[in-house]
């Protein structure tokens, strides 16, 4: 028991004894600034997970799992520091009404089950961790904004700086989806472009200022180029250039894949993933997979 406990508290002991070198500290600090997606394969192509201080766009066709991933990130950002997470809170800006609380509860339950499986003694640790590992707590630590128009979306994003100044424990802001309200009939297309550019600058600023991840889910549309139809991100020309990273979720037959399409520091890569009853997981996991009905 003593040895087990000792090995589990290894990192803490290193910190306490001052044995860790600067490089290890730097690596640990970097790793703490990632939010795990729930899928190891997906984390691998993302360099550990979704990065803080960056704006990441995630696009895909309806039903491929964009909202599932958004919810998963809002849950995973809350994984306690003692269990390898950031211990932060989430802001979820819902423009489409797809944030279904019963599903958030399921994903929170799945996350907690995995924590208890990988950290079997989490429940024996401090009472604060024990209190944290409840689905109700995970739900309560998501600040949920439901907006019904683009003017409300502008208002919420303008308000974010003040909100984050007053809620310093937020480590992720998720917008699902970022373009829905801008796809209506916008009479002045130049104005739309200016508004979207302004929003993207504000989002990049809050990501860096408050050391948090900004995740923008986006819809997919078809574009006719070079004699054939291509899937492309909605409002791509006026929006996507502002994002640090771009991840495309797509179907390959009956399998879900994520393609890292754009990143300043990582190579272009693809990874399979699955949407399970517990949330986003690796495709090869033994969990009941949501096979696509054909």
């Amino acid at each position: 028991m003593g040895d087990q406990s000792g090995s589990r508290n290894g990192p803490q002991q290193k910190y306490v004894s001052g044995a860790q070198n600067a490089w290890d500290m730097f690596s640990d600090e970097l790793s703490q600034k990632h939010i795990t997606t729930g899928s190891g394969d997906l984390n691998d192509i993302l360099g550990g997970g979704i990065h803080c201080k960056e704006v990441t766009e995630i696009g895909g066709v309806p039903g491929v799992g964009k909202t599932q991933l958004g919810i998963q990130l809002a849950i995973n950002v809350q994984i306690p520091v003692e269990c390898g997470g950031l211990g932060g809170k989430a802001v979820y800006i819902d423009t489409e009404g797809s944030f279904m609380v019963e599903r958030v509860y399921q994903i929170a339950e799945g996350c907690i089950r995995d924590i208890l499986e990988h950290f079997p003694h989490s429940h024996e640790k401090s009472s604060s961790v024990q209190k944290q590992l409840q689905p109700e707590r995970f739900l309560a630590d998501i600040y949920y904004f439901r907006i019904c128009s683009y003017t409300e979306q502008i208002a919420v994003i303008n308000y974010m700086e003040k909100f984050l100044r007053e809620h310093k424990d937020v480590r992720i802001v998720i917008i699902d989806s970022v373009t829905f309200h801008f796809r209506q009939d916008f009479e002045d297309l130049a104005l739309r472009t200016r508004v979207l550019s302004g929003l993207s600058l504000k989002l990049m600023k809050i990501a860096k200022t408050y050391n948090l991840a900004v995740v923008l889910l986006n819809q997919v549309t078809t574009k006719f180029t070079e004699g054939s139809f291509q899937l492309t991100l909605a409002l791509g020309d006026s929006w996507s250039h502002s994002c640090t990273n771009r991840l495309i979720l797509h179907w390959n037959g009956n399998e879900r894949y994520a393609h890292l399409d754009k990143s300043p520091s990582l190579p272009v890569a693809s990874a399979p993933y699955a949407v399970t009853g517990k949330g986003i997981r690796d495709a090869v996991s033994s969990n009941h997979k949501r096979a696509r009905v054909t």
Partner: protein
Amino acid sequence: MRPPAPKVPSAASSSSHSQREPRPENPLLLLPSSRFTKLSLGCPLLDRLLCGGLPAASVTEIAGESASGKTQLCLQLALLAPLSPLSASSLFLHSDLPFPLHRLRRLAPKSRPDILDHVLVAAAHSPTDLLSLLARAQRLLANPGRSPHRLPIRLILLDSIASLFRGDFDASPADLRRRSALFFQISAKLKELAYRHQCVVVVTNQVVDVVEGDAGNTVAWSSGRRLSPALGIAWANCVNTRLFLTREVEGNGTSGSARRWMKVAFAPHLPEQSCEFVIRRDGVFGVEPER
């Protein structure tokens, strides 16, 4: 710890809403008690597929071929809403003429002749018609002063969305953009009504044979053909949940019997599963899987 009752947002006007500082909600307080915030389809098997029924504050699409049961389901829902824990009137917007009043009457339980008082019917023949009706619905839901005996409207049915776009649009890029913009206007308005008034919103859609330019849209086999819901991937982005009604014909042509399936094509809260169903005189009902 039992969560408090769901907080229903006040029906504030959009102008005063935008003037107020945005306020986050606590998802814990939005946890649905499925007894009150889902509309049962009147069949435990179909309800199981949908984890309790159709969710409020959300737009559910039912897509399928003609005679696949879409309208029948809508009529069934309109009659179930007043009797369910939702205890609601419905607003039935139809784009095909005439409204199937005879079928509605035949479905209505004889013991409750007053049930038809809780079905409000309006016709929409074009997208602008529909947007105008939805604006009137917004005012009606915000100020339900008249008709004190009518239950509050918490079910909105639109049968069908594709019919609205049959005419008035050609294949030019400008018209395709205009049409697509209308999809998102209609969807935003339906979703706002659903959220602000905690309504169940159901939209039916027709299907078309799969064509090359429709990558990314839902595809299913039905009646031996590969079909997609009409209006392409743009409209697919406008609904929260998509249910696909399919038909599998056994035997040769018309002599074979058809089996019908309701499939969850996508939904934020449901696995992609399906349930066999039949259409009877008294409604649409699920079929227990064969052992």
